[in-house]
């Protein structure tokens, strides 16, 4: 019925990916050198921070004073600025790419749960992205111990001890991080959640993949039914875990700030970026002569997904922004004031709205634009970069405050992560048949027409 296709991970493609990673490393080292010299030493940097950040400190001081607590913890004697930048960037990139990986699995799961037929030829690409889940999980756990004292304010023990640095609000929240151990010690509950989430995601990834591959050999509908059940359970788990993961890994950086939209916000940003990444890999494969059964109708559906969830992201983004803007409560607005008044967050803030809403919305509005590879490639690239910037603004301002930068360091690290992610994805694709052999809905996919 369908010609068998096996993706061959050619040496020249591998070479290109290695070059991408190598350029990334060079840029990263260049960025580190620049960052180390621009501050010209820790002491001077510290003095200039004191001068330039007076009004921010003053505003937090007021906010803190209103809550009846002393302000001491504002300026940590942590790592130098350049090292903080590396830590922040590492954390941001890992969150972003962990999202792309788990969205690969999520995409497969919604296709099974919705009993979709059109997506059969592209499911294996999304599944291949899921191979990044275990790697990102290990990275996340390792990185956490590396970056915790610089990125996560709440890890400092002095916040929970009666005295100068005591923080009543964090003390109240401490159970969420440290249960069942003492506050300020080892955050067992937090680490446990991280391990359990990645463990569950990886387990369901293995189980769903096993059913999908067993179908190639055995045929029939039993494997499809099993995969659908697993997908449905995974979706419930993911709905809860993605939300909590967003609070843990992203929102807890701005420890005093909270938003009930954050779970959805992180999920939607992940989802759009993941959909755009799936589309880009499909385009790459198609241009190299694979995926012959994928035609304009399948591309149209992928484009629709990116279009629709770009608008969904905007809806979530705006819901969060409007309420904070309108209520005008100091401890909430500080989050956006920090982003809108400081470079580079301010231009990232506006660029993110343009790249993640205005451009996809206008460029993907017509039917034809979603059916042609040239336009899909442009818009999906914009969206992938745009959501990386979105995550940059979710994570960096809370850590770096006024010292944030977006230069060779950040871009280089992103390229390294991208190279690794692409290598894992394409390598996984080359290991199994590119097109499902006995999928019960292959007929529907072949006749898909919209």
């Amino acid at each position: 019925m369908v010609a068998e296709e096996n993706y061959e991970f050619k040496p020249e493609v591998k070479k290109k990916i290695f070059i991408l990673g190598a350029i990334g490393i060079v840029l990263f080292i260049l960025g580190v050198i620049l960052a180390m010299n621009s501050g010209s030493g820790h002491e001077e940097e510290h003095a200039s921070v004191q001068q330039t950040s007076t009004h921010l400190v003053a505003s937090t001081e007021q906010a803190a004073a209103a809550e009846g607590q002393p302000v001491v913890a504002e300026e940590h004697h942590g790592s130098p600025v350049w090292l903080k930048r590396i830590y922040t960037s590492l954390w941001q990139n890992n969150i972003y790419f962990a999202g792309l990986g788990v969205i690969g699995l999520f995409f497969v799961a919604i296709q099974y749960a919705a009993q979709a037929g059109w997506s059969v030829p592209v499911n294996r690409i999304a599944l291949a992205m899921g191979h990044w889940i275990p790697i990102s999980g290990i990275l996340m756990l390792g990185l956490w111990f590396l970056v915790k004292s610089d990125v996560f304010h709440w890890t400092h023990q002095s916040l929970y001890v009666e005295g100068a640095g005591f923080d009543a609000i964090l003390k109240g929240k401490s159970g969420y991080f440290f249960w069942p151990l003492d506050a300020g010690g080892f955050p067992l509950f937090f680490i446990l959640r991280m391990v359990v989430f990645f463990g569950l995601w990886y387990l369901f990834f293995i189980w769903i993949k096993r059913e999908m591959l067993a179908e190639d050999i055995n045929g029939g509908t039993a494997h499809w039914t099993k995969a659908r059940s697993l997908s449905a359970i995974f979706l419930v788990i993911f709905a809860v875990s993605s939300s909590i993961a967003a609070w843990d890994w992203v929102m807890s950086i701005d420890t005093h700030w909270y938003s009930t939209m954050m779970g959805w916000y992180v999920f939607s940003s992940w989802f759009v970026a993941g959909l755009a990444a799936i589309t880009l890999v499909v385009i790459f494969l198609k241009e190299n002569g694979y995926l012959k059964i994928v035609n304009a109708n399948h591309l149209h559906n992928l484009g629709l997904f990116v279009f629709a969830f770009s608008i969904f992201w905007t809806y979530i983004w705006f819901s969060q922004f409007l309420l904070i803007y309108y209520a005008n409560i100091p401890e909430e607005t500080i989050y956006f004031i920090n982003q809108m008044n400081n470079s580079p967050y301010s231009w990232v803030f506006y660029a993110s709205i343009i790249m993640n809403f205005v451009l996809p919305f206008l460029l993907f509005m017509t039917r034809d634009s979603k059916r042609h590879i040239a336009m899909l490639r442009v818009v999906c690239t914009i969206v992938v970069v745009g959501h990386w910037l979105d995550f940059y603004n979710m994570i960096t301002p809370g850590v770096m405050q006024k010292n944030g930068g977006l230069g060779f360091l950040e871009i280089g690290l992103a390229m390294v992560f991208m190279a690794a992610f692409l290598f894992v994805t394409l390598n996984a694709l080359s290991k199994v048949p590119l097109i499902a052999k006995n999928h019960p809905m292959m007929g529907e996919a072949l006749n898909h027409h919209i």
Partner: protein
Amino acid sequence: MESNKNFVLGVFDDEDVLLHAVTKVKDKGVKIHEVYSPFPVHGLDAALGYKRTRLPIAAFLFGMTGTSLALIMQIWMLGYDWPMIIGGKNHAALPPFIPVTFELTVLLSALGMVATFLIASDLKPYKWPQQFDVRSTDDKHIMAIDLAKNRLTKEDIGALLKDSGAQEVNDKNF
């Protein structure tokens, strides 16, 4: 009443036969007036050579009208005509205007699309549709061919329809 429009109707039972018949009839150079079917037949639009609807363009224009109207209305009302300080915000602050703008965009584009569709399809009040064969609302596909627009005679077209799988061939005059 003098009958001035004469049609030949091919009655089809099966949508596959119908689809092939459409291609076959068109290949012979016969112009098809319209095909009536009780349910959507995939690929029929393409076989008949219909162009895609331009309704999305109308929707976009109506939507833009809604966006601009909403913004002009709110900025004029709250910024110039009757400036009020609400929640300490600027008179003409953009973020609180967005929900209203969104709603008006959706409302105008939806209503505008419905109106455009009704006008374009000539569906006006007291308009009674020409019904070629009531069975097209139940279980039969009806292919209507306007004799005035074709060179072939009624008999030739009838034979062609029979040949392409029509169950019956009927006449209809309006």
